[in-house]
């Protein structure tokens, strides 16, 4: 007797499970979460806070907000950020002032922890939305974030 009841029970649970999958088989289009990634690149928008890479925004006059205080370099756990700086003459006051020469960012070492952006006092660096970083040569992942010839924005340090 238990033999038949087990067969009955087995078939019953099988059908119960298949009713779940069958429901999705019929209504497969509804509630699909799969994104057709390479095809939807034009419409794909990442969230505002998405951590893709560290970028340094520049305005139209090729000015950035980085004063070269090196707080991000100290905050970084992996040595991802390297700031090469020297002292230039400030045109307004005529005094010697620290300014960045190169803001080097090693994307290949970055763990996207966000401590550098968290610690930056002038919002000089931000998260970029780009995440397509596969390259053939690892050295191309080392980037200089400040554009050539860029200068410090007026009024950042006040």
């Amino acid at each position, binding site marked *: 007797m238990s033999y038949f009841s*087990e067969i009955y*029970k*087995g078939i019953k*649970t*099988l059908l*119960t*499970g298949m*009713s*779940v*999958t069958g429901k999705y088989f019929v209504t497969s289009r509804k509630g699909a*979460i799969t994104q057709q990634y390479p095809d939807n690149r034009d419409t794909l928008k*990442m*969230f*505002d*806070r*998405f*951590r893709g890479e560290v970028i340094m925004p520049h305005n139209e006059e090729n000015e950035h907000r980085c004063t070269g205080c090196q*707080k991000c370099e100290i*905050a970084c*756990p992996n040595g991802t950020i390297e700031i090469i700086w020297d002292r230039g003459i400030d045109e307004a006051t005529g005094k010697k002032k620290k300014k960045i020469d190169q803001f080097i960012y090693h994307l290949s070492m970055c*763990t*996207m*922890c*966000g*401590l550098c952006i*968290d*610690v930056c006092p002038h919002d000089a660096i931000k*998260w970029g939305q780009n995440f397509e970083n596969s390259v053939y040569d690892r050295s191309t992942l080392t980037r200089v974030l400040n554009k050539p010839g860029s200068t410090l924005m007026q009024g950042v340090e006040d």
Partner: protein
Amino acid sequence: METEILYNNFKSEEYFINMGPQHPATHGVLRLVLTIDGEIIKKVEPDLGYIHRSIEKMCERDSYQQIVHLTDRMDYLSANINNEAVCLAVENALQLEIPERVKVIRTIIAELTRISSHCLWWGVMGMDVGALTTYFYGFRDREMINDIMEETCGARLTMNYNVPGGLMLDIHPNFVKRVKEFVTHFKSKLPEYDRLLTGNVIFQKRTKGVGVLSREDAISFGASGPVGRASGYSCDVRKHHPYSAYDRVTFTEALHTEGDTYARYLVRIQEMWESLSIVEQLIDNIPEGEHRVSTNAVIKLPKGEYYQKVETARGELGVYIISTGTKNPYRLKFRSPGFSNLSLLNHIAVGGKIGDLVATMATLDLVIPDIDR
């Protein structure tokens, strides 16, 4: 007499077989050296170290803010709870007053992390015992949590959202709406889990009475989390040593007494319901206020030893900090749940078949980077 001679002539020999480090059922680079007689397991020896990254040593080099992001990489499925553990330890040492808002948000995110971890476990559990469908259902619901995390924390898995003193950013304006959407969505989907897998006869035959762990053994092996609770060992840190906002929510600790694979399965399913209820209790009244208390740029803990434990999705995670008053810890030890849960594998798998070992391992819910650190 004749049968005895026959038996002696055909005496079986023990042999060794490697399971892992590249094996789909070990969910990572865990190598098990199995001593087998026929198909009966005589001994299971876990061989660790394939993904050892010396996180504890790196913590001695890093400042307290930097340590937090390393804990993401231990138990990556409950990354946020790991972060919380380190932050709580540092905050307790500094005797910081943490705003209520931070506590509530941390609790909500921790519970969402727990659900997402259990969703993944459920999918993988089904796959380990031969039901591939569950994998897609579990990942479907987990995707919604990942989106919530991505919108608020910026990353899907390794968020590094907690900082000593609070949260890195305030919650995203959409956070509450999205979490509510998820709760209603998941409440309708969770019964499907039961219909699809829990009640299935094949699944029950694979799991009932397999890998039985008694309450005494659970305690002596240091089992924690769902593994301990399935054996009737009441070990929920959230209940016994409440941290963050767990003292103001009501939830029942999922306890079973059978101690077998099926009981561990049921405990996790029940925990998902409890987590949903915790999120529901908190989401409507997140207190207003600061999301962060300012700390010194260089955090120096007072000289002494500090211990903080939290309940991750896998069990009790302990953070033990010895400070000599400098900006780095002198020693930092993680008591990871996966390590002690793995230690009892030999005890419960001996005498069973290899197929049962896979089912047993699935409900231990091992995350290998958590074991190796």
